[in-house]
């Protein structure tokens, strides 16, 4: 199967086998020399290697441009205020429900985010103008890593990856979609589903899935009324986001 992007001839879109192999060798040496922690790294490596970032078969030029346009239509343009009811399902089955307010601008890639209780009490407020700044936070919500994680989630959900499309075509499951290169050497796959909804998956540099978003078909405003964000790992979480209102701002 040919896996070369039409945009970048000669560049394979498989998940960097040489890097994985190098990492494998390094970890193998570490196992020998560094004991437990290296062993742990090796196990992680194996787990990562077991996951599979699907191959994409690039479409012909005409079809590729149509698919790319379709992919780009998934992302909002301009300045928006989005309000969601967020049901968070946490590791162990616990659930929490919050209201989330996001003001984002694709012009300057800025984000302003507020999380509050259903009663309206603000738990967390932060802005990201290239640097995350927490304006208000209760206790553990004040953790800088939490703020960064929230912004990463928002950026993943609503911003087209800034490094752009590297391939558009058909994935292994026969769905049409696009592959994006994202910052931090990540890869994002976006596919349109048969019902008009979307699925987007983010992988790390080793092809390990980090986040998956599933969105219902967009409403008349071009905004999906329901998003689900799933993140794996030891403390996996699932956010079900129901749109309360979407306002395009000037």
């Amino acid at each position: 199967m040919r896996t070369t992007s039409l945009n970048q001839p000669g560049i394979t879109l498989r998940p960097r086998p040489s890097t994985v192999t190098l990492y494998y060798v390094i970890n193998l040496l570490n196992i020998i020399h560094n004991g437990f922690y290296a062993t742990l790294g090796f196990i992680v490596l194996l787990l990562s290697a077991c996951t599979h970032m699907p191959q994409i078969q690039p479409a012909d030029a005409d079809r590729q441009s149509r698919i790319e346009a379709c992919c780009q239509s998934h992302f909002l343009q301009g300045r928006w205020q989005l309000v969601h009811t967020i049901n968070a399902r946490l590791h162990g089955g616990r659930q929490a429900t919050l209201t989330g307010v996001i003001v984002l601008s694709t012009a300057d890639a800025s984000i302003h985010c507020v999380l509050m209780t259903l009663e309206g009490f603000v738990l967390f407020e932060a802005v990201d103008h290239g640097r995350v700044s927490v304006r208000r936070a209760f206790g553990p919500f004040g953790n800088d890593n939490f703020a960064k994680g929230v912004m990463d989630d928002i950026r993943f959900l609503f911003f087209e990856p800034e490094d752009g499309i590297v391939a558009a075509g058909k994935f292994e499951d026969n769905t049409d979609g696009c592959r994006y290169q994202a910052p931090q050497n990540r890869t994002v796959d976006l596919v349109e589903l048969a019902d008009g909804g979307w699925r987007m998956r983010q992988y790390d540099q080793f092809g390990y899935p980090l986040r998956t978003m599933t969105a219902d078909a967009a409403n008349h405003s071009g905004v999906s009324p329901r998003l689900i964000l799933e993140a794996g790992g030891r403390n996996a979480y699932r956010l079900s986001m129901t749109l309360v209102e979407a306002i395009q701002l000037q």
Partner: protein
Amino acid sequence: MRQPVFINSCPLNNPFPSRLRGFAGCLLCSLLLIAATFCPGWADTWESIRAAAGNVDAISADFVQEKHLPILARPLVSKGRLFYRRPDSLRWEYTSPVKSVLLMHDGDARRFVQSDQGLVEDASVRLQAMQFVMPEISGWLGGRFQDNPLFDASLHGTNKILLVPKDAGMARFIQRIELFMSDRPGVIEKVMIFESEDAFTRMVFSNTVAKA
């Protein structure tokens, strides 16, 4: 193994830190108190408020809640209904934009939120805030504002009570609460909860029924 940073630091495991104690409860208490106690002309003194409040056994009211924040192009509007019965039974229900029900009885509190599976218990809500303030509700309904450990209360004119946090830590998050009564005896008009001058919650009540 690489993970989103959020995974390793998710505070939703404990989304209601102790700092939050009192806020939601005070909100509820404020509403209940007003519904129970205010009638024009008799809210001039704490004694008259206490005397009138002693006659109320149960309350129900519809409410519209507006959340104002600088970030919002227009306020967030929620609607619902509350029911209270002495000494400590409360149903606080939102009907929009998302259905949720908060039930408090005999010191225990549970919240249910509408989801794909129907009304699902929101287990994260340990509701310390509610349980912490619940014992105060009787005091508020009894018109005993000055016994409140969280707020200093003062009367302003004939239709306003001002509550100011006693604790500086609390004041970082709730600047003040203003309670207003309507001209109609026994009927509340609104509650204003200020987090800052431009971040506040307005709650307006209607169809209030108080039973003696």
